[in-house]
C-alpha cells in the first residue's frame, strides 16, 4: 500500500520549541512517526547565563505560558538548593496555592481542546468559559492573568492579603460544580468512552523507558508525582492524593486530569486556611549564592519540570539546564500512535497535552512523488470529530441533545 507522510506542525511551545510531527501512514494506519522540534528554540539556557538569579525566574517563566509558574518554582528551588536556603513557611503555602491554581487552569485548557479535537466544539467553549474565573483569581493575586511573577529565590514576591482570601475561596468553590459538570459530560460519556478507551495505549514499560512523566505516566499506572516523592513547596504540609490509573489509554489520561483538578481544589483550600494562620515573612532575603550545583523540580501540570543550575559564586548562573515534561512525554507518541488510525492520531498526540499549536498546520507528503497531497491538520481534527459522531450515532446518542442536557 502506498505510504503517505502527514506532517503535523510546527508550532508547539515546548520548553524551547514547537514540534513538528511527521506521520507515516499506510491507508488509514499510522506506521511511523518522526518528530522535529526547534521552531521555538529561544536559547533560554544560554540567556539564563547572562541574567542574575533575580531575573532568571522571569526568564524561565516565559519558557511557556501554560505551565508558567512551574518553571520559576523549579528554578528557585534549584537556586535554593545551591545555597541551602530555608524558605519561610508562608511563602511555601503561597507557592503551592499558585501552582495548584495553575494546574486547574492548565487542565481545563487541555480539556477544552481535547473536546475540540473530539468534535465537541461546544465543550471547548464552555470549558474555557469556566477557565476565566481561575484567571480572574490570578489577576486578583498577582495583577496579571498569566505570567504571575510571584516566585523569587528565597520566597515569593507578593503576599496574599487576608481580605482577598474569601474571594479566592469563593472562586474555587464555584469551580467544583463546573468540574462535576465536566466530569459528567466527559468521564461518564459513552461516546467519549468509545472514542478514547483502548486507544494510544502506553504500557508501564514504555513510560519507564521513555522516562515519561506526569498524568501521562500516572495514567499508565506509574505512580510518580514529585509533589509527593520529593516534597517541595507546601505539598508535604497538606493532605491530598496522587491519582493513578492502570489502563494507559487516552481515556485514562482524561480521567487522571479531571480527578487531579479535584485534588488541586483540596490543596488550594487547605493552603488558604493555613494562610490565615501562618503569618510572617514571605521572603528569606537571600544574601548570596555560593559556588556549587543545585537541582530543583516541580510537578507541573504535565509532569516534573527539572532545573539544574551551576553557580560560580557570582549573581548569575554559570550553567542553566531546563528539562520540561513534554520533552520526555512527546517522544512517547512514537509508541502510542503507531498502529492506530489517522482519525485517532490527533487525540493521541494531544493526549500528552503538548499544548495546542502543534495541530495548527498540516500537509501530506506523498513519499513516492514527494508531492504534497491533501490532508490538513484540520482534516485530522475533522477525521477525529467524524469518528466521535459516528460512534455517537452507533450508540444512538445524538451529540447535541446531550450537550444541551449538561448545559442546564
Amino acid at each position, binding site marked *: 500500500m502506498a505510504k503517505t507522510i502527514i506532517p503535523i506542525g510546527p508550532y508547539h511551545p515546548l520548553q524551547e520549541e514547537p514540534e513538528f510531527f511527521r506521520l507515516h501512514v499506510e491507508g488509514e494506519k499510522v506506521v511511523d512517526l518522526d518528530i522535529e522540534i526547534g521552531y521555538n528554540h529561544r536559547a533560554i539556557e544560554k540567556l539564563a*547565563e*547572562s541574567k*542574575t*538569579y*533575580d531575573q532568571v525566574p522571569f526568564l524561565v517563566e516565559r519558557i511557556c505560558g501554560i505551565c508558567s509558574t512551574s518553571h520559576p518554582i523549579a528554578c528557585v528551588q534549584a537556586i535554593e538548593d545551591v545555597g541551602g536556603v530555608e524558605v519561610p513557611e508562608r511563602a511555601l503555602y503561597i507557592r503551592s496555592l499558585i501552582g495548584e491554581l495553575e494546574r486547574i487552569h492548565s487542565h481545563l485548557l487541555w480539556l477544552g481542546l481535547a473536546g475540540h479535537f473530539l468534535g465537541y466544539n461546544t465543550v471547548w467553549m464552555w470549558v474555557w468559559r469556566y477557565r476565566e474565573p481561575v484567571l480572574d483569581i490570578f489577576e486578583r493575586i498577582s495583577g496579571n492573568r498569566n505570567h504571575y511573577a510571584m516566585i523569587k*529565590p528565597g520566597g515569593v514576591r507578593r503576599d496574599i492579603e487576608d481580605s482577598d482570601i474569601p474571594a479566592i475561596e469563593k472562586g474555587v468553590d464555584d469551580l467544583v460544580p463546573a468540574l462535576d459538570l465536566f466530569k459528567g459530560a466527559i468521564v461518564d460519556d459513552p461516546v467519549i468512552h468509545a472514542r478514547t478507551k483502548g486507544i494510544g495505549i502506553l504500557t508501564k514499560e514504555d513510560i519507564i523507558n521513555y522516562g515519561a512523566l506526569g498524568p501521562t505516566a500516572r495514567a499508565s499506572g506509574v505512580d510518580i508525582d514529585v509533589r509527593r516523592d520529593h516534597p517541595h513547596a507546601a505539598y508535604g504540609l497538606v493532605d491530598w492524593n496522587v491519582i493513578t490509573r492502570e489502563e494507559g489509554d487516552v481515556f485514562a489520561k482524561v480521567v487522571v486530569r479531571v480527578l487531579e483538578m479535584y485534588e488541586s481544589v483540596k490543596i488550594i483550600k487547605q493552603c488558604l486556611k493555613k494562610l490565615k494562620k501562618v503569618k510572617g515573612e514571605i521572603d528569606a*532575603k*537571600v*544574601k*548570596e*549564592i555560593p559556588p556549587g550545583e543545585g537541582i530543583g523540580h516541580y510537578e507541573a501540570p504535565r509532569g516534573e519540570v527539572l532545573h539544574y543550575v551551576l553557580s*560560580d*559564586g*557570582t*549573581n*548569575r548562573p*554559570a*550553567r542553566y539546564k531546563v528539562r520540561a515534561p513534554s520533552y520526555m512525554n512527546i517522544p512517547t507518541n512514537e509508541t502510542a500512535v503507531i498502529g492506530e488510525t489517522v482519525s485517532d492520531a490527533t487525540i493521541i498526540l494531544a493526549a500528552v497535552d503538548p499544548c495546542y499549536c502543534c495541530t495548527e498546520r498540516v500537509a501530506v507528503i506523498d513519499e513516492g512523488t514527494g508531492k504534497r497531497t491533501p490532508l490538513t491538520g484540520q482534516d485530522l481534527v475533522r477525521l477525529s470529530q467524524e469518528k466521535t459522531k459516528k460512534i455517537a450515532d452507533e450508540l444512538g446518542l445524538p451529540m447535541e441533545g446531550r450537550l444541551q442536557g449538561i448545559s442546564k
Partner: protein
Amino acid sequence: MSKRLFIDLEVCNKHLEVAVPCSYFYHPDNKGVISLRELATFAIICRQCDEAPCVKSCPQDALEKQEDGTLKRYNMRCISCKSCAYACPFGTILPEVIPYAVSQCDYCLDRLGEAEEPLCVKRCPVEGMVDYREVKEEPEKDIYFVGEHLAVHARHWEKVEAEAK
C-alpha cells in the same frame, strides 16, 4: 615566593572608563578586575567606620560589616543603586565598582602555565598597573597582600593617620 596578581589601585582609580578583557570563562562579559578592585578597596582603603553610613544608606541591606571589620557586599541583594557610594564620607566606594551583574576573578589559576600571564595583564592599556609577578608585602611602599593571590598598591588609611600625628 609564588607569583601574585598585582594591581595598583592608585592608578586604576584614575582610569575608571577603561575596561580590561578578562579570560574568566563562565560569563563571557565578565570583568574580573572590577571585583578585585572592590575586594582591594574594602580591604585597604575603607575606614571601617563604626557606624558606617554606607551600611545605613543601603536600601537593600546588601552591605554588612564582617567580623574582622571589613565590608562585604552581598550580590543577591545589591541592586546597584549606588546609595552607598554617595553616603561614604571618604569617597571609598566608587560607583563604577558596584555593578549589578557582578564579575568574578579566579586568578586564572587553572589556565596559567609557568610562562603565561593572565589576559587582563596582557591587555590592560595602562602600562604596568596590572601585573603578574613575584611581590613582597611592603607596607612602607604601600604594597599589601589581600587574600592568597592578590597584591595591591594603595595608600592605607592608617598610614595617613600616622602622618597626621
